[in-house]
């Protein structure tokens, strides 16, 4: 016979005011396997906890039910108390008779039997609880950060400065991400490159950071604290240690392709320096565009390279690393050009996207900071900025708000005015969203100081007429149709997850939200954690963000990663699924439903990775044969609880 102790808390009058605790205690003491049932005014008080501990020792209780408030409040308290008295913590369960009973009923004659039933059901459960110990796994105390933009750099620096080794993986040849492309940043108008390059340098020089540019994550296995990753290191064919940035190679290279850094506003050679401040500071031979590499047919760059930094024989390498935590900061890309045909992007040379305009404003950009029409290199006198190009349009484009466009459009209009004092900037907008420190003031400055004309409404069409761009729109405030003969149109394109992020998410087994951004574990309370334990999110990979937000989240993610890396061992709740192998037929339905990839088939039978399992029990309900059960909430226990709840 089981020896269960039932401890009923009065919670002052919170419970005892509506539930006849003495009566419930009497009733429970009659239950099979219940060795004693006692009530006390405050079970969570020290004397209350001592009462439980004493009873465990004196009566040799093998399980305990504390009938009190919600388990979210004192489950840990009572489990610890039980443990101190020598009872396994998992043999203590809470019956919630306050929030779910005494507080919601007034009639004692009805609340009392309900409380008794809740406790009886809990008694049935606890009597079948296994003794469990937290699952413990060792931790590899290093981290991997994927993405070398501002978020990735920040996360890496925070981790490294806390003493943990970091592998920073960036798929392009240089650190910097999109931030390094920007001219000035809102709301302070400080130069983006000026504030970012020191951080890039710091990251590249940090003894704890292993920088892997031009590299991509190929495969991730393992689990929190113990990931094994395979990283593909693509060859740049140029040894950064030897490259002295003389530019001779580029000069002789016969191949010209659009320059990604300038978003096609300029060209580059097949061997090129990504941008002047690139880290690592080295040229890179782009083997996709060099037609003469396999086999080597041209060889011009090799011949002119004095330091002999070029080596055509380099091969892709797979680097294997072990890490305990992973931060994903893969950033964003702009919405596809082709999808914004209605505004003529890609069709008319003087219709630019926001990033192209940034490059144009940048002192290091294609026009050295002058704002010139790509078509005729003339200063535009009328510039139309169109916000929400692709955002907030559930029918045709993205349903979500890209969040940063209101601010950067204001900034860009302002920058335009600073360059072209007599020009006119128009901004079409749906709403102005300027929530953020000094953001609203910034927008007001654009209107008041720089005379930017804000037009509330959508643009229906942009088309070329002569050397002008006709912009047809509506001002919904005045209700008037608006036609502007613009010299340049700048589209605040929607942000979408970076190219390749989806495939990466698959490799990492991360969930995506409906828009393809990485899904956080909880939208409010776990915003930097991914659904997979040990993997964290930073920056625009999770949702559109501006720089301060991306940096804050990156530091948050680093800190979350440190909560793992700072441990010698990780402890995990042991109420996880377990396989009942002799019932398993290997159909794999549980494998398919597991949100954590914690279940696998081995030799035709199910196997649970206890470290990955979160104990949700979806597998248990899916299995047709009861071959997988969550410990301490098994089908058997639920069956008994149902019976007890119905009074039988």
């Amino acid at each position, binding site marked *: 016979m089981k020896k269960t102790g039932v401890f009923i808390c009065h919670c002052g009058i919170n419970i005892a005011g509506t539930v006849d605790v003495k009566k419930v205690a009497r009733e429970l003491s009659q239950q099979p396997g219940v060795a004693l049932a006692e009530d006390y005014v405050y079970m969570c008080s020290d004397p209350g906890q001592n009462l439980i501990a004493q009873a465990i020792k004196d009566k040799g209780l093998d399980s305990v039910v504390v009938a009190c408030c919600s388990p979210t409040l004192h489950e840990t308290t009572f489990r610890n108390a039980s443990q101190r008295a020598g009872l396994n913590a998992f043999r203590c369960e809470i019956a919630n008779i306050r929030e779910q009973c005494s507080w919601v009923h007034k009639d004692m004659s009805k609340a009392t039997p309900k409380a008794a039933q809740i406790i009886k059901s809990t008694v049935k459960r606890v009597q079948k609880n296994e003794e469990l110990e937290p699952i413990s796994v060792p931790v590899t105390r290093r981290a991997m950060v994927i993405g070398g933009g501002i978020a990735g750099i920040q996360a890496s620096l925070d981790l490294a400065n806390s003493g943990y080794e970091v592998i920073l993986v960036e798929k392009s040849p240089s650190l910097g991400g999109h931030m390094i492309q920007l001219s000035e940043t809102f709301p302070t108008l400080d130069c983006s490159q000026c504030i970012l390059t020191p951080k890039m340098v710091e990251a590249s020089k940090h003894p704890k950071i292993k920088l892997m540019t031009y590299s991509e994550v190929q495969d991730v296995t393992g689990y929190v604290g113990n990931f094994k990753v395979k990283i593909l290191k693509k060859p740049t064919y140029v040894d950064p240690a030897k490259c002295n940035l003389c530019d001779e190679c580029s000069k002789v290279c016969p191949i010209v392709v659009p320059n990604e850094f300038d978003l096609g506003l300029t060209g580059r050679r097949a061997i090129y320096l990504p941008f002047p401040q690139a880290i690592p500071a080295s040229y890179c031979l782009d083997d996709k565009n060099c037609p003469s590499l396999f086999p080597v047919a041209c060889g011009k760059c090799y011949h002119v390279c004095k330091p002999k930094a070029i080596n055509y024989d380099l091969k892709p390498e797979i680097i294997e690393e072990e890490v305990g935590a992973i931060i994903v900061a893969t950033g964003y890309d702009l919405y596809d050009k082709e999808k914004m045909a209605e505004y003529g992007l890609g069709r008319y040379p003087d219709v630019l996207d926001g990033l192209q305009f940034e490059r144009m404003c940048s002192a290091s950009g294609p026009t050295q900071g002058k704002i010139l029409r790509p078509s005729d290199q003339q200063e535009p006198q009328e510039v139309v900025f169109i916000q929400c190009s692709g955002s907030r349009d559930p029918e045709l484009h993205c349903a979500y708000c890209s969040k940063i466009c209101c601010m950067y459009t204001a900034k860009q209009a302002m920058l335009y005015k600073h360059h072209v004092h007599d020009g006119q900037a128009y901004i079409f907008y749906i709403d102005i969203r300027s929530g953020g420190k000094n953001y609203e003031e910034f927008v007001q400055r654009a209107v008041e100081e720089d005379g930017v004309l804000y037009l509330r409404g959508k643009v229906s069409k942009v088309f070329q007429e002569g050397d002008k761009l006709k912009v047809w729109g509506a001002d919904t405030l005045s209700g008037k149709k608006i036609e502007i003969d613009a010299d340049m149109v700048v589209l605040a394109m929607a942000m979408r997850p970076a190219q390749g992020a989806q495939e990466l998410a698959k490799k990492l087994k991360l969930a995506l939200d409906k828009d393809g951004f990485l899904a956080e574990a909880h939208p409010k309370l776990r915003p930097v954690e991914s659904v997979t334990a040990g993997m964290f999110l930073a920056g625009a990979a999770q949702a559109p963000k501006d720089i301060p937000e991306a940096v804050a989240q990156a530091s948050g993610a680093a800190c979350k990663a440190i909560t793992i890396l700072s441990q010698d061992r990780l402890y995990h709740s042991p109420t996880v699924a377990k396989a009942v192998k002799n019932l398993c037929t290997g159909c794999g339905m549980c494998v398919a439903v597991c949100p954590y990839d914690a279940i696998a088939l081995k030799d035709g039978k199910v196997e649970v990775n206890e470290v990955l399992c979160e104990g*949700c029990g979806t597998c248990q309900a899916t299995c047709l044969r009861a071959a997988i059960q969550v410990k301490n909430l098994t089908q058997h226990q639920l069956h008994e609880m149902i019976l007890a709840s*119905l009074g039988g």
Partner: protein
Amino acid sequence: MTEEFEPKIIAFLCKWCSSAGSDLAGVSRMEYPPNVVPIQVMCSGSISPLYIFSAFNRGADGVLVSGCHPGDCHYIKGNLYARRRLALVKKLLEHLGLEPQRFRMSWVSAAEGQKYTQVIKDLVRDLKPLGPQTKLRRNV
């Protein structure tokens, strides 16, 4: 005048949303009928059709399964599996001739104490006129 029929209801509440929502109803001192015995599970996705059949077999007059709203599931998508599985259960029970009101599913978030209260009130109100559930109930 006979005493008014008081239905016996089992409510399977997911720990993270609906049980928390029910806790909130308590904390807010909302009031609802005492006919429901809650059973807290980790996720609505863990509710096997067997539990529902069994509850009816053992004399439940009504069964409620409540989970997180779609997209809010603590376990990402358990509630979406539950939604599909329990839709089938509901259709099956109705095909058999069980009154549709007897099996109910709801989404109640941790913030929806008011909604939980309403769900229980509605359920009890709907079940009272039906009287005891005898169709699936065992009578040995």
